[in-house]
């Protein structure tokens, strides 16, 4: 049997999108590890306390580092403070918009909404657009033509990956989208996942944000100083590296077009600082399989179902040692992917979904 290389069309309105719908890959039924209802309910229970604590630490540090950086502006001593401020602004917000968007971080909904709006502004993701795009990401995780949040497409564009460690392409696209939305235009692809009734809200928020950025630029010009932009906007660039470092590991190098999160998502054990910044999203297989489990319960969920999952990568370094060679191999054969081994205690993958892809990957 001859297998021709697949041509992937990542457009949400292209050929792969059409094929995904026709083949039943879109909005499919996904594999879930069995968990008794009583335990599942316990895991899904909401609590305000952990997120209030973590948010107080996050905002407290953000203000402290920002104030120290501003006070020392003009000397090299401001650099370490801005480096910390940047990570809290340009990376920690990636996890916070995400968790609060799921509505699981806090028990109290207005707290989820408030942190969601703040974090979305900092990470430059329109809160309406991204709520709906992330909904699609969970429905059709790494389904080509359906998932709008595939970070590394095949064949991998490694230059784009490197530039995004400094937020360059992401922030540029975010700015273009913001200006376009502020002008009242919703893109063709955005329209595939944002309901018409929600689109005016996306436009209204884009206009508010544009006004804030213009005011910040005006203040910088008035003061003749970069400082206002070091505090608002630029941290999305100089502080982006951590969220890219952790985010690439979520699905990088793994299978696409499968309906089992054990095959297309990666759990990575991480140091406590990264886990605080990342709000435990290193437990990514668990998060995708059960997205309504709050971040603070993911370590418990991991312990409960690890018998049914591939072994986690033991560190970020181990994750990258697995992922980077896969990216390089995908440059030559975009059908290649890492098929993670299951432990003997796990229920097997449904091979009927993967046999063709596995053949093409050889």
């Amino acid at each position, binding site marked *: 049997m001859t297998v021709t290389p697949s041509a992937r069309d990542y457009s949400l309105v292209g050929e792969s999108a059409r094929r995904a719908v026709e083949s039943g890959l879109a*909005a499919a039924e996904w594999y879930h590890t069995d968990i008794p*209802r009583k335990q*599942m*309910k316990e895991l*899904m*229970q*909401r609590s305000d306390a952990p997120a209030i604590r973590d948010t107080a630490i996050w905002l407290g540090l953000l203000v402290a580092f920002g104030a120290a950086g501003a006070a020392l502006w003009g000397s090299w001593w401001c650099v370490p403070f801005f480096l910390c401020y940047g990570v809290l602004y340009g990376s920690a917000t990636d996890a916070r918009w995400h968790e609060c968007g*799921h*509505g*699981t971080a806090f028990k109290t909904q207005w707290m989820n909404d408030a942190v969601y709006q703040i974090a979305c502004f900092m990470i430059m993701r329109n809160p309406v657009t991204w*709520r*709906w795009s992330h*909904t699609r990401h*969970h*429905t059709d995780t790494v389904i080509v033509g359906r998932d709008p949040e595939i970070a590394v497409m095949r064949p991998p564009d490694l230059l784009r990956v490197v530039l995004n460690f400094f937020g360059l392409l992401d922030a540029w696209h975010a700015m273009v989208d913001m200006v376009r939305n502020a002008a009242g235009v919703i893109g063709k692809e955005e329209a595939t996942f944002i*309901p018409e*009734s*929600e689109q005016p809200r996306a436009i209204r928020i884009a206009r508010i944000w544009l006004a804030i950025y213009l005011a910040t630029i005006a203040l910088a010009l008035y003061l003749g100083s970069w400082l206002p932009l070091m505090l608002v906007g630029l941290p999305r660039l100089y502080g982006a590296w951590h969220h890219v470092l952790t985010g690439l590991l979520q699905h990088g190098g793994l299978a696409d077009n499968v309906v089992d999160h054990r095959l297309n998502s990666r759990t990575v054990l991480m140091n406590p600082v990264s886990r605080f910044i990342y709000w435990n999203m290193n437990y990514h297989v668990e998060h995708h399989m*059960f*997205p*309504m489990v709050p971040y603070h319960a993911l370590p418990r969920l991991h312990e409960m179902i690890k018998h049914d999952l591939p072994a986690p990568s033991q560190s970020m370094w181990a994750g990258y040692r697995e992922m980077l060679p896969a990216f390089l191999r995908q440059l030559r054969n975009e059908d290649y992917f890492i098929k993670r081994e299951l432990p003997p205690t796990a229920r097997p993958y449904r091979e009927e979904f993967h046999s063709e892809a596995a053949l093409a990957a050889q």
Partner: protein
Amino acid sequence: MSDWIEACAADDIDEEDVLRFDHAGRTFAIYRSPEDEFFATDGLCTHEQIHLSQGLVMGDIIECPKHNGRFNYKTGAARGAPVCVNLRTYPVKVDDGKVFIRMAD
């Protein structure tokens, strides 16, 4: 058809919880509120075809297990993105420890 259909025993559902009930090719969700009242809705989220019986009941709210879509299960009202369409509700009665629902035509 407007007959009452036996869905489950009242004790099958914990307080503030939900149970799936399939009948005649359709799927329903039966709820027991914290006040020990019973309610019934269509079993699938109106956003995407996800069984609500896997979700979390919080007071009057059922939360879809996939995308956090929330409904008031007593009225069927959608309570915010990503759900925009209300859930259909059904009359429920409890008789001799059994829960019955009445299906609309």
